[in-house]
């Protein structure tokens, strides 16, 4: 099944959903996924360029998996086409304030080029866009109401089996970020449950440096205790949702709020809360 089909099929947890609710802003999570308010304003440029970037790498990895020839040199230009298509799909409603579309296309081409130059030819691609839907169970055997649903960008083998996530970023990752990454835990757990034993999770990161992009690989591992901890977090998330104890991230007016598409609803939250309770009662 595709990720979209899995998402539509049932209420579920995903890495991004858990991360938003527990680590970013529970109110943003509630506006989007609980009360399902329509988002305000245009889609962020990062989201649109990220989709086109992923699509390029998907095509390359799928061709490698199937043993098909692909002209890698054409992939950077394909990025421009895919970006235009993605903008069309979003109805042209993209926030180009920080970077205009032409600059984003140029940058995207350089990022794709950097990624494909650093592909390890010895690695065998086992799966691309591998989806999973799996129970979450804590150390005491308590299961969540909703399963964990997700999609791993790529699974490769070269003496060990590795789940790979493709990323771009303005900065390099710290070892702490990689070691604590909830995405790493969720992806390793989901792929392990659906595809069998997996050894490593890896971020394949292209860093957007001023002179030229740089390619970095960050590997990390997880164990059963980490998976139990993830389930405990999901159980806690279900309590938050059940009790509707959502609140704004008041310290987050810098980064998380910058991308938030519920700013107006958030500003009015402490006034509309009473209305919500009275209507629901």
């Amino acid at each position, binding site marked *: 099944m595709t990720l979209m089909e899995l998402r539509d*099929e*049932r*209420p579920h947890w995903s890495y991004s959903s858990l991360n938003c609710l527990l680590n970013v802003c529970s109110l943003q999570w509630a506006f989007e996924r*609980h*009360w*399902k*308010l329509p988002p305000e304003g245009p889609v962020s440029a990062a989201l649109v360029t990220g989709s086109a970037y992923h699509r390029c790498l998907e095509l390359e990895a799928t061709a490698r998996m199937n043993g098909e020839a692909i002209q890698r040199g054409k992939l950077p230009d394909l990025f421009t086409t895919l970006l235009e298509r993605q903008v069309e799909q979003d109805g042209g409603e993209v926030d180009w304030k920080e970077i205009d579309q032409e600059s984003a296309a140029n940058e995207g081409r350089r990022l794709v080029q950097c990624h494909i130059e650093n592909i390890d030819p010895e690695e065998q691609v086992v799966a691309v866009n591998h989806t999973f*839907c*799996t*129970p979450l*169970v804590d150390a*005491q*055997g*308590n*299961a*969540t*109401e*909703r*399963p964990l649903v997700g999609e791993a960008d790529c699974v490769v083998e070269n003496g060990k089996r590795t789940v790979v996530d493709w990323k771009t970023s303005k900065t390099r990752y710290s070892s702490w970020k990689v070691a604590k990454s909830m995405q790493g835990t969720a992806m390793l757990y989901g792929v392990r*449950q*659906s595809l069998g034993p997996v050894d490593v999770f890896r971020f394949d990161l292209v860093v957007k440096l001023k002179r030229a992009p740089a390619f970095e690989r960050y590997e990390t591992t997880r164990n059963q205790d980490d998976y139990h901890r993830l389930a405990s977090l999901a159980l806690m998330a279900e309590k938050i949702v059940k009790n509707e104890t959502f609140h704004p991230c008041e310290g987050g007016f810098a980064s998380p709020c910058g991308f938030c598409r519920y700013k107006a609803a958030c500003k009015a939250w402490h006034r*509309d809360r009473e*209305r*919500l309770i009275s*209507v*629901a009662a």
Partner: protein
Amino acid sequence: MLRLSCSYSRKAQAEEAYSSRSYHAGLEVELPAGLTGDQIDDQVHNTFEQLRRAVEAEISGQVPSNGDKGAHQSPDAGNSPAKRGRNGGNGRRISNAQAKFALDLARRNGVTLADLDQMIRDEWGVGGLYDMDASSASALIDTLKVKKAA
């Protein structure tokens, strides 16, 4: 004679922003005398599960047609679980409530998630719990109940 009264209610989002709609259903059933504590526990879970499924189906608008009703089969119905396969029953996939109930029964029986997955692969020929169809899930729940009673 024992009387079991179960109710289930849930609030769902209404069409208007910031508003919700309440759904509630109640069911009263008579239980035979002489049931053990575990058997009563099972009856409570079964009744509650049935109510919950009905309310969730009402909210989602997926109320089964008459043709779908009674499609649940036990493993003894002369149709082996493996033959029914994925979505081979009434076409619906296992619900979250069924999956949760099966996982809770597994926990109480001391069956680990790995063992449960193995059982599902061996008996039903699918990859995991959420790959099961609704009728196979009912059969799995029956199997886990039998394990518990034994």
